[in-house]
């Protein structure tokens, strides 16, 4: 399969004025030439193949938006190279935008006062979509979502969920090779989130569209992405299969137990007996959680140690979730 996106040593730096405090400082800033360089993206390399759904993750301010802006051609890289569909995006911005789709969770790109169907017809003209493909897509969309309630409604009158749905449909209409979805499920209810995930999955399946998904919702990642890329402070932290990620951290399991007696005392005692076992003990409400690294010590051993001195009322065993893994990466690194 071909790479649709090839990024090599991509860097984007901004010059920021060193600001000084107070009124005196502000006046000094007016004349100051004291700049420091801030790297929004630093030395990122990445290849993405046709048809992949890639979760592009990172905490706020990590450089996700900046990378996407460079891939869409809005921003020019400071150094490094970037090829999208074999083109340099900022040099051929118009041609590039013909073959990509972009959705921002909070910013609708549809015509505010027009009914959705009219927006679709305009997009048909703008992208030069041929009628056959257009009809096919509309028919396909009809099998995926209930178009009836939204098709003749002005975007202005839509709910956030309907609007996001419409934006996603619109972004795939011209059969782009790549679609950038920036937090498409932000602020949506559970049912709508699920609808949108199903929709993205189905379109990717049928059209083989590459999808770059940025999100803070690990539910999106679990449902859609086989590969994830994580960046923080502009640098790449992780780029691999999601299965690998789970395997990587998957040796961790959480054992949760509910014991008889005073919880804070129990926590202390268990912490003491397990102190040589390399586990983390914590508690919330009535549950005591023991995070166990199974490579080093078995969960059942831990349980039997606990059972020696305490009566276990209830217990649970939890796999580590993607959310936990990502949280761990954000806070501790890989």
């Amino acid at each position, binding site marked *: 399969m071909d790479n649709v996106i090839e990024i090599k040593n991509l860097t984007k730096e901004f010059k920021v004025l060193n600001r000084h405090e107070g009124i005196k400082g502000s006046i000094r800033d007016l004349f100051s030439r004291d700049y420091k360089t801030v790297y929004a993206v630093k030395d990122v390399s990445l290849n993405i193949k046709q048809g992949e759904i890639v979760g592009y993750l990172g905490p706020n301010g990590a450089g996700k938006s*900046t990378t996407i802006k460079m891939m869409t051609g*809005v921003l020019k890289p400071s150094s490094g190279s970037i090829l999208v569909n074999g083109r340099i995006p900022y040099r051929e*911005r118009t041609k590039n935008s013909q073959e990509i789709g972009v959705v921002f969770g909070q910013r609708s790109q549809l015509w505010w006062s027009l009914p959705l169907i009219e927006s679709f017809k305009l997009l048909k003209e703008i992208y030069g979509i041929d009628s056959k493909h257009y009809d096919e897509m509309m028919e396909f969309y009809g099998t995926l979502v209930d178009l009836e309630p939204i098709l003749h409604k002005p975007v202005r009158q839509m709910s956030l969920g309907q609007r996001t749905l419409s934006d996603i449909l619109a972004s795939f209409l011209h059969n782009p090779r790549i679609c950038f979805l920036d937090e498409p499920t932000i602020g949506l209810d559970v049912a709508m989130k699920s609808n949108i995930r199903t929709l993205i999955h189905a379109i990717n399946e049928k059209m083989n569209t590459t999808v770059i998904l940025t999100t803070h919702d690990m539910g999106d990642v679990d449902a859609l992405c086989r590969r994830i890329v994580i960046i923080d402070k502009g640098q790449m932290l992780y780029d691999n299969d999601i299965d690998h990620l789970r395997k990587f951290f998957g040796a961790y399991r959480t054992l949760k137990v509910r014991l008889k007696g005073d919880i804070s005392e129990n926590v202390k005692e268990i912490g003491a007996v397990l102190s040589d076992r390399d586990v983390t003990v914590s508690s919330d409400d009535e549950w005591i959680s023991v995070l166990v690294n199974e490579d080093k010590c078995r969960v059942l051993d831990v349980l039997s140690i606990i059972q020696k001195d305490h009566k276990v009322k209830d217990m649970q065993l939890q796999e580590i979730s993607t959310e936990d893994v990502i949280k761990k990466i954000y806070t501790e690194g890989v």
Partner: protein
Amino acid sequence: MNNKGLAFYIKIYGRILAQDLKSKMSYRADFIISMLGMIFTDAAGFITFWIMFRNFSSIQEWEYYEMLFLYGFSLIAITPVQCLLDNNWSLRINVREGDFIKYCFRPINLFFYYESEVFDVKGLGQLGVGVFTLVYAWIKLGLGCNVMMVLKVIVFLISASLFMMAMQNAAAATCFWIENSFYVLDLAFKLKDYAKYPVTIFGPVFRFVFTFVFPIAFIAYYPSLVILRPDNVPLLTWLAPPLGILFFYLSYRFWMLGAMKYNGTGS
């Protein structure tokens, strides 16, 4: 953006406009009130002249109906900027809040795409008052009428409106560089109020400013001379059409330069 011709853009604009008007008509009260508001505002300008000329018989050899002619001419010349480029007023907010980025992903001309989003119907009320005033003054002045004159008026109206659009574009585009650009845009908009006076009534400094710095004298005064003072047309008048095109083009380049520099806020 060069691979799509004028016909393509006109077609797209027509479609957006038709749909937009349809949806605006559905808010009937809003439509009528804003239209009436504009008509009253412009009619008030008419009345100002009427009251003024109760007291003077002329301003520097410019009599009542000639002044009305200028006024009508300027109203018509301002119509395109009012109708077509009204979204420039939102540019500042779109840029500051990062919404402008959503316009950057379409394979069509960015300036066109941005401005096509809004068509201000109020401008049509202005056009109505303008045409009425111009025709009324024309008849009262007994200028007569032939094809050549009509043609001249049309050409000079177009070039006048190009000046107006250029000024507004350039003023709006300053928001790509400066934070509070409202005052620049507001200034450009208010300056148009001076367009309805013959530039000769101002002192030499302002005459220079209104001709070469903020070229509002080209919005009504210089073009009107072709009809009102046909024996004594200055060179600047004949230069108005090419200069109008040049100014508009420069303002468009300036606008696009800002837009290309723009890179939005994080989301």
